[in-house]
């Protein structure tokens, strides 16, 4: 078993769609929180297979897309310092800040390097002791333990020239904001499979207990998503609300305790600033005292005032309030070669996905 092709079987998919059609009677809106789900849903044409009364909304689950402009501007300002090397995941390169992007800065000769893993930043720091190496720590709970490991190792090895621009986010508090919003009605959530691999089911219990909505943690192959949708429909039709796991091969109720302990060693909960959603309590992390020296926000660097394109609808798109098709910039001015907002940059951004598949 390779755990991929088996979950793309056409015959089973057709059977599941028949099952969904038979079970579903109510008009509902389901939100897929995660950008990786959005890509799969479009790639496999899942929206078109569902009955017309089931609407799928794309949510804020793209860490690149929700990174606020001022953090991009800070990274750009840091890259302009002569003694700084910026290390980043590739997705961040094209994200527009207020007046520039890391890609443009690299073209201007700044030392900006793309990493596959947080651990690459340690190698670069060790190889350049005369420079300050800054890793752009973005990501949800899937990525946070990997960043925590890099920080723990840097401390153990006594690496003094490695710093982190921490812009990580926690997913569950953002779901509270979406559920409390009056602007979009969500009848159920398809929850992110890999965030949940780390955090398990406990942090989501409020969805069913406080808000009375069903939620299913689903995998990313087409059969996973179809089964997840069916499980949500079944709960709704039976007037139940619970947090269930479809993606049982990697998600357990307790999550990954080793990974959670790494996060807990280095970070504590703090408010998070989300593009589009604003400041959300407990949706971010700050360094614990012992690791604060690695926080790049201690640097004294001048950052330009933050501004965004007035017509960009990324904020509304991230909340499922609008679709990219309602944005005046979409395809006309804003496209993957000239992204105006971050939702067009990331391969998991909703605008980018609409551009490729719609």
């Amino acid at each position, binding site marked *: 078993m390779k755990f991929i092709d088996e979950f793309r079987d056409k*015959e089973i998919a057709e059977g599941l769609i028949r099952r969904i059609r038979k079970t579903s009677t109510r008009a509902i809106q389901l939100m897929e929180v995660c950008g990786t789900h959005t890509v799969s849903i479009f790639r496999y044409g899942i929206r078109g297979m569902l009955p017309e009364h089931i609407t799928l909304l794309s949510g804020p689950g793209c860490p690149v897309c929700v990174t606020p402009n001022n953090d991009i501007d800070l990274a750009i300002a840091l890259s302009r310092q002569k003694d700084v090397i910026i290390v980043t995941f590739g997705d961040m390169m094209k994200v527009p800040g207020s007046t520039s992007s890391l890609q443009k800065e690299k073209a201007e000769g700044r030392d900006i390097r793309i990493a*596959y893993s947080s651990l690459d930043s340690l190698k670069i720091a060790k190889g350049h002791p005369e420079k300050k190496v800054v890793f752009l720590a973005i990501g949800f709970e899937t990525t946070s*333990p*990997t960043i925590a490991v890099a920080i723990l190792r840097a401390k153990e090895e006594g690496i003094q020239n490695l710093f982190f621009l921490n812009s990580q986010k926690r997913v569950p508090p953002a779901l509270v904001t979406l559920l409390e919003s009056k602007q979009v009605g969500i009848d159920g959530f398809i929850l992110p499979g*890999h965030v949940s*691999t780390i955090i398990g089911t406990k942090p989501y219990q409020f969805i069913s207990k406080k808000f009375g909505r069903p939620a299913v943690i689903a995998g990313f192959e087409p059969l996973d998503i179809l089964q997840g949708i069916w499980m949500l429909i079944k709960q709704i039709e039976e007037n139940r609300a619970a947090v269930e796991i*479809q993606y*049982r*091969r*990697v998600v357990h109720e307790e999550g990954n305790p080793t990974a959670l302990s790494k996060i807990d060693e280095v970070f504590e909960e703090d408010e998070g600033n989300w593009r589009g959603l604003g400041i959300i309590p407990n949706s971010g992390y700050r360094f614990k005292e012992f690791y604060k020296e690695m926080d790049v926000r201690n640097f004294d660097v001048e950052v330009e005032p933050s501004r965004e394109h007035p017509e960009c609808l990324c904020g509304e798109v991230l909340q499922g309030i609008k679709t990219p098709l309602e944005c005046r910039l979409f395809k006309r001015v804003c496209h993957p070669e000239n992204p105006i907002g971050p939702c067009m940059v990331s391969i998991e951004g909703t605008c980018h996905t609409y551009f490729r598949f719609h």
Partner: protein
Amino acid sequence: MCLGIPGKVVEIEKNVAKVEVGGILRDISLDLCPEVSVGEYVLIHTGFAIQKVDEEEAKETLELLRKMAGVI
């Protein structure tokens, strides 16, 4: 960004595993998933194994899906 891909562990040395993904061997950190053995599958995210892939659970899910879809 939260992309995770399954790969098969073929060798382990301390806390780094050689993991096969699509015929290519990659060095993957086991810091977050220490209790894994050669021959098992792990879910890989940005160079780290973040969870073991449970083959029994995968088989059960597929079995259930076949039944639901009326393929059996």
